[in-house]
C-alpha cells in the first residue's frame, strides 16, 4: 500500500482502530457537541472531558505527543478570542496601561477566553484521534450510515482517491518552477520578477492544474462507463451494529448527557 505523507491515518493494532467506524464517528461528533455545550467556567467538566479524550489517545496507541502536535495546529486562531479578556464587563482583574489607554481585564473575560481555548483544544484532539485511527473508506461508510447523501459521499470518496494524485501533480509543478527560477539563499536578494509576475506564474500553474484535472475527470468518466457505471452509486449494505456496539454507543451518549446535566446543574 502506498502511504502518502498527507494521509493522517496511523496504522496501529489497537481497540480504537478496531472499533466500528460508525461508532467512532458518532461518538466523536457527540463529544464535540458536548464540549461545545459545556458552559464557560465549568472547569471540573472540562477536566473530565480531557480525561476522556486523553484516554482515547492512550488506548489508540497513537501516543499523547503525536495527537498534541497535530492538535496545536489550531492554536493561532486563539488570538481571535484574546481581546475578549479585556472587552467583557465584569469584576476587574488587572489593568494594563498602553499609551493613553488603559485595558482592564475582567474575571469573566478571562474565564470565557480560557473556556474557548479549552473547547477548541479538546475538540481538536478528538478529531485528530478520529482521523488517525480510522481509514478514510471506513469513514465514508460511517458518513453513509448517518444519512449523508450517497452522491455526496461518492464525491468525497472520489476526491480522496485522486487527492494524492493531484497533490503530487501540484508538487511537480512547484518543483519545475523551482528548477527554472533562480533561488537565492542570501537575504534581500529576490528571485524571479515582480510580485505581479510571480503571482501570474502561480496562476498559470493553478490553471494548468485545473485543465489537467478536467481532462483526467473525462478519462475517469469514460473508464467508469466502460465498467458499467450508469449514474447510480452502488455500495454494499452496511453490516448491522452488534449488541456490544449498541451498548457502547448508549453508554457513551449517556455519559455525555450526564456530564452536561452536571455542568448545567452547577455552572449553568
Amino acid at each position: 500500500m502506498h502511504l502518502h505523507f498527507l494521509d493522517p491515518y496511523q496504522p496501529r493494532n489497537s481497540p480504537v482502530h478496531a472499533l466500528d467506524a460508525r461508532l467512532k464517528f458518532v461518538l466523536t461528533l457527540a463529544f464535540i457537541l458536548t464540549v461545545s455545550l459545556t458552559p464557560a467556567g465549568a472547569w471540573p467538566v472540562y477536566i473530565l472531558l480531557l480525561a476522556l479524550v486523553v484516554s482515547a489517545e492512550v488506548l489508540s496507541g497513537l501516543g499523547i505527543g503525536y495527537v498534541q502536535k497535530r492538535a496545536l495546529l489550531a492554536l493561532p486562531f486563539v488570538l481571535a478570542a484574546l481581546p475578549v479578556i479585556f472587552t467583557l464587563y465584569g469584576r476587574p482583574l488587572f489593568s494594563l496601561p498602553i499609551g493613553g489607554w488603559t485595558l482592564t481585564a475582567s474575571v469573566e473575560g478571562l474565564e470565557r477566553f480560557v473556556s474557548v481555548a479549552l473547547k477548541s483544544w479538546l475538540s481538536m484532539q478528538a478529531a485528530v484521534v478520529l482521523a488517525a485511527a480510522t481509514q478514510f473508506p471506513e469513514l465514508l461508510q460511517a458518513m453513509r450510515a448517518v444519512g449523508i447523501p450517497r452522491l455526496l459521499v461518492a464525491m468525497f470518496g472520489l476526491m480522496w482517491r485522486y487527492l494524492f494524485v493531484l497533490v503530487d501533480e501540484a508538487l511537480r509543478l512547484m518543483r519545475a518552477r523551482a528548477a527554472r527560477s533562480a533561488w537565492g539563499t542570501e537575504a534581500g536578494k529576490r528571485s524571479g520578477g515582480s510580485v505581479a509576475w510571480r503571482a501570474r506564474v502561480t496562476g498559470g500553474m493553478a490553471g494548468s492544474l485545473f485543465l489537467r484535472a478536467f481532462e483526467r475527470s473525462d478519462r475517469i468518466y469514460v473508464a467508469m462507463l466502460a465498467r458499467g457505471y450508469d449514474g447510480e452509486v452502488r455500495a454494499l449494505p452496511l453490516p448491522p451494529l452488534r449488541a456490544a456496539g449498541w451498548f457502547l454507543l448508549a453508554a457513551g451518549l449517556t455519559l455525555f448527557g450526564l456530564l452536561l446535566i452536571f455542568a448545567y446543574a452547577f455552572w449553568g
Partner: protein
Amino acid sequence: MLYSPAPMHIPDGFLSTMVAVILWVITIGVVGYALRRVGKDLGERQVPLMGVLAAAIFAGQMLNFTVAGGTSGHLMGAAIATILLGPWAAVIVLTTVVGVQALIFQDGGLLALGANIFNMGIIGVAVSYFVYRSVQKLSGGKTWGLYVGGFAAAWLSIVVAALAVALQLALSGTSPANIAVPAMGGIHMLIGIGEGLITVGALAFVHAARRDLLHIGEAAPTGGKAVWVGGLVIALLLAVLSPLASAHPDGLEWVAEQKGFLDTAQQPLYNLIPDYVFPGISNEALATIVAGIVGTLIVFGVALGLAFWRRRKTA
C-alpha cells in the same frame, strides 16, 4: 509540512452551539438544492467531475508565491471554481473540499463545518458569481471583463467571507466585533489581492489553452439570477452589518446573549427590545451604513453608465 491551515477555517470551540447549528441548517438546505441542480445539469458525469475538481482545488491551495518578508500568497479557489463551473457545481466542489479538510486535516472544526461551508462554499460562491457576472455583462463579453471580473470576484469573495467569519465570532461572544471585523477584514483585503492575482493568472492560462471551458460557467444556469441576487444581498448585508457591529460591539454581544437559547429560556420575551431605543443603532452607525449603501450604488451606477456608453459607441 506543506499543508498549512488558512485563517478562514473556524476551529471547533469558537462558535456558540446556537450559531453553529443555525449555519448547519442553512448549509444543508443550500447544498441539498445544489446537489439536485447539478445532478440535473450534469447527470451521471457529476461524480467524477466534481470529485476530481475538488481534489484539484485542494491541491491548488498548495501553490503559493512569495510576497515579501516570508509571507506568501495562495489560492482558496471559490472564485475560480465559480467562473469555470458555474455557481451550483462550485458550491458542491467547495463543500467537498472544506469537508475533507475538516475531517482529515482538522483544518476547521466538525461542529463548525456548517459555518465553514457556509462562508467559503456559499458566501464565497454567491459573491463571486454576482461580481463576475456583473462585470462580464458590463464588458459585453470582452477579454478585459474576464480579467477584471476574475480579480474583483476573487478579492471580494475573500473579504466578504472574512467579514462573515468575524461576525459569526462576534455573535458567538468569542471575539468582540470592534476588533474582529477590522482585523479579519484588513488581513483579508491583503490576502484577497494574492487570490485575485492568481485567479487572473489561472484565467489567462485557461483563456489561452482551452477557451471553450470558459463558456461552461458562462451559460446562465437555471436559478442563476437567484444566485446573482443572493450575492448582491450578501455583499450589501455584510457591508451594512460590519460597521454596525464594530461601532456597537456591545449591541451585538447583547443580541448574542439574548439569542443564546439558554438565556432565552430564562428571560421574558419583552426584554428583547428595551423601551427607549432599538439596540445597536445610533446616528453614527446609521450614517456609516447609509454611506456604505450610497457608495456601493454610486460605484455601480457609474460602472453601468460607462458600459452603456461604450456599447453605444461601438454599436
